[in-house]
C-alpha cells in the first residue's frame, strides 16, 4: 500500500478515573483503509480505550483526530461492533442492518441499496425478513458487522466481535471480515485478546502494556493473504507478540 496521510491520529490520549490512570498518553496513527489490531494482557483497559476512542467516554487529556478534525460521532462515521449482541429485537434483519444509516439520515433509496449490497456480501439476504431471535448467534454478529460497515465508517472499531463464538465459526467470520474489508476499504481497529486472530487479520499490531496502558510495541504484519496459521513466518510473528504480552 502506498504511503498515505494518516486518517486517524490519536495523540497522547489519556483517561483517568480519579487516581487511577487507565490510559497513559497513548499515541498512534492509522492510515486510510488500514486494518490495525490491538492486543494486550487481560484487564489492560481495552474496553476503556475503545469507549474513549468512540467518544462514548470523554478523554481526560489528548486528542483524537479524524482527517485532521476532532472526532465527533455526530459528524464522523464511527462504527462500533460490540462484543455482546446489539441487534434490535423488534426490527427485522434488514432493518437492523439499515439502523446505523437510518440514524445518520441516509436517504431511503441509498439506504436500501447499500443494505442489499452488504447483505448480499455477507450472505444475509436469505434471512432479511426474519427477526433476530429467529437466527443463530453467528448471524447476529454478522448483522452487527454489516450494520457497522454499511455506514461507510471513517473508523470502524471492533471489540472482540468473535470472542464468544466457537473456533470454526470464528475462522469463517474472520475470512468474511477480510472479504468485506477488502471490498469496502474501511479503516478498521480490531481489538482482541486472541493473538492468532490478530496476526491473521491485521496489517499492523499494536501491543498494549498492562495498566497504566501504553503502546508497548508496534509490529507490522507483512504476510500475503490468504494467510496460513501454519506458515513459519506467521508463527514467528505470533511468537513475537506472545512474548510481548506474556504475564506468566
Amino acid at each position: 500500500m502506498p504511503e498515505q496521510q494518516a486518517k486517524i491520529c490519536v495523540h497522547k490520549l489519556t483517561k483517568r478515573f480519579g487516581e487511577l490512570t487507565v490510559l497513559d498518553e497513548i499515541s498512534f496513527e492509522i492510515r486510510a483503509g488500514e486494518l490495525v489490531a490491538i492486543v494486550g494482557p487481560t484487564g489492560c483497559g481495552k474496553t476503556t480505550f475503545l469507549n474513549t476512542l468512540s467518544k462514548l467516554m470523554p478523554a481526560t487529556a489528548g486528542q483524537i483526530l479524524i482527517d485532521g478534525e476532532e472526532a465527533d460521532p455526530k459528524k464522523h462515521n464511527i462504527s462500533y461492533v460490540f462484543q455482546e449482541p446489539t441487534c434490535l429485537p423488534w426490527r427485522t434483519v434488514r432493518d437492523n442492518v439499515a439502523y446505523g444509516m437510518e440514524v445518520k439520515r441516509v436517504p431511503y433509496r441509498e439506504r436500501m441499496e447499500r443494505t442489499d449490497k452488504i447483505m448480499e456480501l455477507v450472505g444475509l439476504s436469505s434471512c432479511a425478513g426474519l427477526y433476530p431471535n429467529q437466527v443463530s448467534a453467528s448471524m447476529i454478529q454478522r448483522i452487527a458487522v454489516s450494520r457497522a460497515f454499511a455506514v461507510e465508517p471513517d473508523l470502524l472499531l471492533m471489540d472482540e466481535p468473535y470472542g464468544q463464538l466457537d473456533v470454526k465459526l470464528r475462522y469463517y467470520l474472520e475470512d468474511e471480515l477480510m472479504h468485506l474489508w477488502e471490498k469496502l476499504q474501511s479503516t478498521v481497529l480490531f481489538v482482541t485478546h486472541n493473538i492468532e486472530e490478530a496476526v491473521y487479520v491485521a496489517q499492523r499490531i499494536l501491543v498494549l502494556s498492562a495498566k497504566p496502558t501504553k503502546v508497548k510495541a508496534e509490529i507490522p504484519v507483512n504476510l500475503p493473504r490468504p494467510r496460513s496459521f501454519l506458515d513459519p513466518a506467521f508463527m514467528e510473528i505470533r511468537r513475537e507478540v506472545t512474548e510481548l504480552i506474556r504475564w506468566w
Partner: protein
Amino acid sequence: MQAYKEVVVKTPLPLRILPYLSVAVFLLIWELAVRTGMIPSVLLAPPSQVFSLFIDKLTQPNPDGAVLAVHAWTSLQEALIGYGLSLLVGIPLGLAMGWFRVVEGLARPIFELIRPIPPIAWIPLTVFWFGIGLAGKVFIIWIAGIVPCVINSYVGVRMTQPTLIQMARTYGANDWQIFCGLCVPSALPMVFGALQIALAYCWTNLVGAELLAANTGLGYLITMGGRLARPDIVVLGMVSVGVSGAVLGFIIDCIEKRLLAGIRR
C-alpha cells in the same frame, strides 16, 4: 420462510373439567350453607336466589331504580373513560420520566407523594371540584389507573439494554432518536403489562368512585343493597363487578397478545 411450527399440546380431560368442578363445588357449598341455616339468610343470600334476582333485574328497575344493564353500562362508561385517560397520560409520562432527566426530576417527587394515597381518599376533594357527576368518578378512576401506567413505562425505559444505547450513540444518534427508536420499543412489553394492571386498578376502584352520590352503577347497586338490607342485591352487585371485570381483563389480554405478537416475535 416458516421458522416456527405450531405445536398442539392436548390438555388431559380431568385438567379441563377441573375449573368448572371447583366453581360448581364452591356454589354448592355456598347454597347448602345458607339453606341449612349455618349462615342466616339475612347475612348472605344463596346463589340460587341471586340468580333469580339476576333474571328479575334484567327487566325490573325496582327496588334500586334501574335495570342491571343500565347499572353495568354506567360503570363501564366511567371505568373505560378513566382507564383511557390514565393510559393517555400515564404511559407518555412514565416513558418520558424514564429517559429525560428533567421530566424525572420534575414529576417523580410529586408522583411519589401522590402514589401512596388511596384513590378513594380523593372523594371529598372530588366532590368540591367536580360535583357528583360523571367527571368526579372518572377522576378517581383515573388516579387509580395512572399509577401502574407510569411505573411500568418508567421501568420499561430504564431496562433498555445499555449496550443498545451505546451502539446508537456511536452512530451519532441524539437523545430523541434513542428515546423513540430504542427506549420506547424496548419498553413496550412492560407498557402492555400496564394495560392489564391499570384495568384491574380502575375496575376495583369503581365501587369506591360510586360511593360518590350516584343513582346508577354497579357500585351503587351494592351500596343500595346494603341500605335496603338486601344481601341478594349486594351479592348480585359484587358478582356483576367480578364477572364483568374478568371479561374486560380477558379482552385486554387478547388485544395485548395480538399487539405484542406484531412487535416482538
